């Protein structure tokens, strides 16, 4: 759909764990098709230290309820105000922004690798893949520091097989996602790897995919001022020069990045 500025109403705000919330936002105008990997940019007026908007991946869209969801970690003033927004209040959102993940052809085996709030666009991707009936064989590898930080595993499980790692060993393999065998044993068995999370994690995953010569897309999170391609602040180095994460991305094929 075209980019718009809208006041969305908080339909529900569910606290998932210590610092993660799931916000479901209802649009006043009919939502058109939104691609997994796209994001929103939210204005936060009830704080003196949030002059700019704050970008968040779209976590899911329910076209029937005309809602979209955000998966937000409370890390600072902007995310804090948002995770504290009561039901019924409105938030000022610019959306949809950015490109989105490339859909695979039919009957492909794909691996999603997520860390932290990086699971948000991946889950939306899995949901859409399934809805589009592409018969993808979806595998998801999710890592966190501790079991309590592993969220929405059930949602992933709806769409395919789930692997987990925790740094303290409280769930799944003890270690980091990159220690998991699914990434080291025969990565070639996947037709594509899609990853979103902390940059060091994505870089490690990208390196493994590159080594195994597997298609791999990463979703970047550069700091942004505008979010729609006019300020040129969010650039990343690509083989064709500086590109904007907000418009040319946030999803990039690792082939094009200078990683």
């Amino acid at each position, binding site marked *: 759909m*075209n*980019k*718009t*500025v809208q006041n969305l109403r908080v339909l529900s705000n569910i606290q998932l764990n210590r610092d993660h919330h799931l916000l479901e936002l209802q649009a006043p105008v009919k939502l058109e098709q939104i691609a997994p990997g796209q994001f929103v940019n939210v*204005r936060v007026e009830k704080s*003196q*230290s*949030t*002059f*700019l*908007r704050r970008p968040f991946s779209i976590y899911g869209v329910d076209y029937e309820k005309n809602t979209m969801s955000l998966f937000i970690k409370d890390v600072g003033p902007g995310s804090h105000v948002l995770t504290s927004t009561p039901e019924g209040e409105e938030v*000022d959102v*610019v959306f949809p922004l950015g490109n989105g993940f490339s859909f695979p052809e039919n009957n492909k085996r794909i691996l999603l690798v997520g860390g932290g709030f990086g699971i948000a666009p991946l889950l939306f991707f899995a949901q859409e893949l399934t809805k589009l009936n592409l018969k993808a064989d979806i595998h998801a590898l999710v890592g966190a520091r501790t079991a309590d930080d592993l969220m929405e595993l059930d949602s992933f499980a709806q769409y395919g097989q789930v692997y987990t790692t925790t740094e303290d060993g409280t769930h799944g393999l003890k270690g980091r996602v990159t220690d998991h065998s699914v990434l080291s044993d025969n990565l070639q068995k996947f037709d594509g790897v899609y990853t979103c999370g902390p940059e060091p994690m994505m870089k490690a995953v990208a390196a493994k995919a590159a080594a195994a010569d597997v298609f791999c897309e990463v979703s970047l999170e*550069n*700091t*942004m*001022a*505008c*979010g*729609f*391609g*006019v*300020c*040129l*602040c*969010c*650039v*990343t*180095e690509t083989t064709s*020069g*500086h590109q904007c994460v907000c*418009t040319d991305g946030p999803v990039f094929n690792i082939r094009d990045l200078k990683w």
Partner: protein
Amino acid sequence: MVDLRVKIGDLDLKNPVMTASGTFGYGVEFEDFFDLDRLGGFVVKGTTLNPRQGNPYPRMAETPSGMLNTVGLQNAGVKYFCEHIYPKLVKYQTNVLVNVSGSTAEDYAECAEQINELEYIPGIELNISCPNVKEGGMTFGTSCPSAEAVVRAVRKVYKKHLMVKLSPNVTAIDEIARAVESVGADSVSLINTLLAMAIDAETRKPVLSTITGGLSGPAVKPVALRMVWQVAQAVKIPIVGMGGIMNAADAIEFMLAGASAIQVGTAGFVDPLAPVKIVEGIEDYLVRHKIESVTDLVGSLQL
């Protein structure tokens, strides 16, 4: 009905609201949000003779009521602009100005000369004030002789409206304004960004790749207003005011201080609809205050 039309020298604007270079891309990026023809004009991205890849990431830091940027004039060069971008801009029924930067007076002139050929570009905004690249003109804009030199060189080859954008990083901006007026500038626009810096106390590193960058947004508005007021006492050519304009009241303040038109920059990041809301807000203000023409506001501060 109130009259929103203004003139900046020989430029006719349907209203005094333009958008600022480097914050409005090539305009097209805003098309989803509003009809660009509702603006008095817009200034496209800083353009240089040769292509520039700009500064490394990170290029942005959020600051109290503002932001720093160090984009560094990333652009594909004037030739690319003329061949590939310009054709997309001819359709607009409003003033499209090109912001021009360079490292030498000759660079500026050569770039301006090429833009002089573009029928639907009625003027350029000469950026002698970019703080983010060594060759970005800030040094031109911080002394009268160098400002005069570059304006003189461009004036020779550029026949349409020549707006000169001034740097706020000076002791006496009124003197620089007088200097560029004396060598043929048709108007001045101000302010460009204030040279500034952000540090991350936790990592103990500068936030920006280039250590310093340019401050914009509401934080600078009081300084910008003062400079517009100061320049208005010094020159006869029209002034285009900018710096932290977020809403119609801000825009009106700049006009009261002496600006004939204004530009909206950073505000468009926070609210992409800000430029048109400001057009509407100015209209409302005139109606409410029973002022027939927006030009009656210009320089009408009551002391």
